């Protein structure tokens, strides 16, 4: 117990102002209004403003938005570009083959959006309903009652220097107590990770498997802009044993969103998702979309790809998990926003019901998973559960299996399993080195000029938020055995090996570059890197990603 922190009581505290957290907050207030009840809802967001840390493709289905805010159009929701044309390309190094669009990937009626902008708008809707949103404050610690149930969260202290001492600016964090706490941290939530352990929430689930998505936003000459065009690719530059692919969406105002996703179960430690993305842009089928344009934003974020069999237990005394921190993402559809929002709605309804009963503090909202199982979402997720794991047999094996699976409509009597991403790396000598081309500064860029465009900033004098459990492992294992893969999978150049020329290599962590994608926390071969929240407000400042 700390006595230097102020505390405040709420009915519900939501951790994270993404699509799931904001949807839950909105729904709670709507239900309270309908039932004439007072309900205080507070949302904490580690980004400097709502949307600052949101990064997604994104083509979204509106079915949940339609339910949550039916008049979203009249209320000015930033959904401006309907997806009009779908293309799926298989790329070889010099050429491409147009493939039939798989049924899950038809985007008719869907919208190409900036999820960051959508979240900002959802935030406004939530505030109009009386939700209190506090961006710039990271939930850094889960608080527990004496009986072990979740009591709420505490924000991090501000003004702790690098050396751990308090600076003149020191301000203690604040405790936010709630009858129910909703964890909506997004993929690989740092508090969710501690909850998994505390309540053993993963004991009946397969390991989670992840991907890293790297994205750029381009402004292109009007003549080559085709608003509404949606292109997905597979194949080159990835080898067939690595899962991944690209997206390229033509939004409004001559904007093109382009990105690349690599499954984090890749095995070659020499692979660099960032460089794969850069060279992908030089493909003759892709280059013409960008040429003559200018890159205006950059960022990266991990995503949960494990699907149905990797879902953890969703509730525990005093709280619930929603959205991508739980792992609601439909991999073949490459969409998760609709599911994240749906989980938020269902959780909100369950919590609203629970709060109507007496003595609801610290209780478990078991109605949430029970209801969720009865919605379309559970079935949707169940039926695609075998697609992602089938790609362990490589691209062709995955294709063959997916074709079979489609024929079975997803009702195969078996469920394929996952393995943990961090255990999949070969050693540096078992895998072939990859020679990546140098950036040209026009279409392809180096990492630092990219991070620059993410507007990332962290208060310099603070404790490093990327902690090594054992500092010696960075060289003894990561460097010696795997040639420091973190220097390649980190899309922001946070990890650097220095002093190699003197024969005394050392891992340098440039934590101020971190774009909060969480890949290091996932992929580090011995799970030696622990990602914690830095001071609130730090991290990227995405304008519209």
């Amino acid at each position, binding site marked *: 117990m700390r006595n230097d922190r102020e505390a*405040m009581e709420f009915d519900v505290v939501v951790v994270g102002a993404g699509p799931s957290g904001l949807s839950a907050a909105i729904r709670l207030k709507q239900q309270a209004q309908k039932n004439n009840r007072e309900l205080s809802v507070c949302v904490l967001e580690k980004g*400097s403003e709502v949307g600052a840390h949101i990064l997604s493709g994104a083509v979204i289905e509106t079915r949940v938005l339609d339910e949550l805010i039916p008049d979203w159009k009249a209320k000015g929701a930033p959904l401006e570009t309907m997806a009009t044309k779908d293309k799926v390309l298989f790329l070889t190094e010099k050429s491409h083959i147009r493939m039939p669009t798989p049924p899950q990937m038809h985007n008719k009626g869907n919208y190409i959006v*900036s999820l*960051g*902008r959508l979240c900002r708008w959802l935030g406004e809707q939530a505030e109009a309903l009386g939700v209190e949103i506090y961006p710039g404050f990271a939930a850094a610690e889960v608080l527990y009652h004496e009986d072990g149930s979740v009591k709420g969260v505490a924000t991090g202290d501000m003004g702790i220097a690098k050396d751990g001492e308090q600076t003149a600016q020191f301000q203690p964090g604040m405790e936010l107590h709630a009858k129910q706490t909703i964890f909506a941290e997004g993929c690989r939530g740092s508090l969710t990770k501690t909850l998994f352990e505390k309540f053993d929430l993963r004991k009946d689930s397969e390991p989670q498997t992840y991907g890293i998505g790297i994205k750029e936003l381009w*402004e292109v000459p009007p003549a080559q802009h085709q608003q509404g065009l949606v292109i997905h690719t597979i194949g080159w530059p990835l080898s067939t044993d690595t899962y991944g692919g690209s997206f390229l969406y033509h939004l409004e105002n001559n904007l093109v969103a382009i990105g690349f996703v690599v499954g984090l179960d890749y095995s070659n430690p020499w692979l660099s998702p960032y460089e794969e993305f850069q060279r992908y842009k030089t493909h003759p089928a892709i280059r013409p979309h960008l040429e003559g344009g200018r890159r205006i934003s950059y960022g990266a974020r991990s995503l949960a790809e494990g699907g149905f069999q990797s879902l953890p237990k969703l509730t525990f005394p005093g709280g619930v998990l929603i959205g991508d921190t739980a792992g609601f993402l439909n991999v073949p559809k490459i969409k998760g926003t609709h599911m994240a929002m749906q989980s938020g709605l269902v959780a909100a309804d369950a919590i609203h019901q629970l709060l109507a009963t007496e003595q609801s503090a610290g209780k478990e909202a078991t109605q949430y998973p029970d209801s969720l199982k009865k919605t379309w979402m559970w079935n949707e997720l169940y039926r695609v559960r075998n697609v992602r794991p089938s790609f362990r047999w490589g691209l062709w094996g995955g294709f063959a299996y997916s074709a079979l699976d489609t024929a079975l409509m997803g009702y195969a009597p078996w469920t394929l399993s996952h393995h943990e991403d961090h255990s999949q790396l070969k050693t540096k000598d078992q895998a072939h080195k990859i020679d990546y081309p140098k950036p040209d500064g026009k279409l392809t860029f180096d990492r630092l000029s990219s991070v*620059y*465009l993410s*507007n990332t900033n962290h208060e310099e004098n603070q404790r490093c938020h990327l902690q090594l459990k054992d500092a010696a492992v960075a060289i003894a294992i990561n460097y010696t055995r795997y040639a420091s893969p973190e220097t390649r999978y980190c899309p922001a150049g946070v990890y650097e090996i220095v002093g190699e020329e003197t024969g005394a290599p050392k891992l340098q962590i440039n934590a101020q570059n971190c774009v909060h994608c969480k890949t290091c926390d996932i992929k580090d071969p011995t799970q030696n890197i622990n990602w914690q929240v830095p001071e609130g407000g730090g991290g990227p*400042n995405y304008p519209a990603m």
Partner: protein
Amino acid sequence: MKILVAVKRVVDFNVKVRVKADQSGVDLANVKMSMNPFDEIAIEEAVRLKEAGIATEVVVISAGPTQCQETLRTALAIGADRAILAETDAELQPLAVAKILKAVCEKEQPQLLIMGKQAIDDDSNQTGQMAAALLGWPQATFASKLTVANGEATVIREVDGGLETIALTLPAVVTTDLRLNEPRYATLPNIMKAKKKPLDVQPVAAMGIDVAPRLKTLKVTEPPKRSGGIKVADVAALVAKLKNEAKVI
């Protein structure tokens, strides 16, 4: 003693701005905005004067669109007592802001008007000086130390080549430089409390002030790209290059 602090809502310092395709200005769509950092220093200084028992009330004012309320709430969270928004969607140039400040000073009668020495968006460095002239008050710009006692303010100013100490009779205008103080964090409890502090919105249109722009922006361009450096063999080569190519010595 009452202190009035003027704050401006500007593009956040972390944002890499980019010029609009038509060169009419900087693209502000979806860009994070926050309080001008120099104005944050001004608020901090005023709050410290209040905490020291010298000031009795800190009033904060901003001029601009509705969203400036967020900026004012931040100032209230740092410790200002109440806020005024002179609301307008029109473009405001330094002279227009100075006129608004004059009108508000005449009504509020503060002893000190403090603001940042300049805003990080247009870097004009004019508003404080113009407000002082319009009000007929003494001014101390680029303040790196401020002491107030016996109806007088003593200000150490950062000037070329050193520090200048001047005394002003109150009421006066002070503009803040970087070294004046290091502003505190707006804490979560204080942000929550700031929501309940009074914020008075006054339409500029009703103030009877001519805020029409006097300056016209012809075009905005990005600075030329920096070309890569070269290594020179020795000092003589460097001197030769500075003399003959760069022509700086």
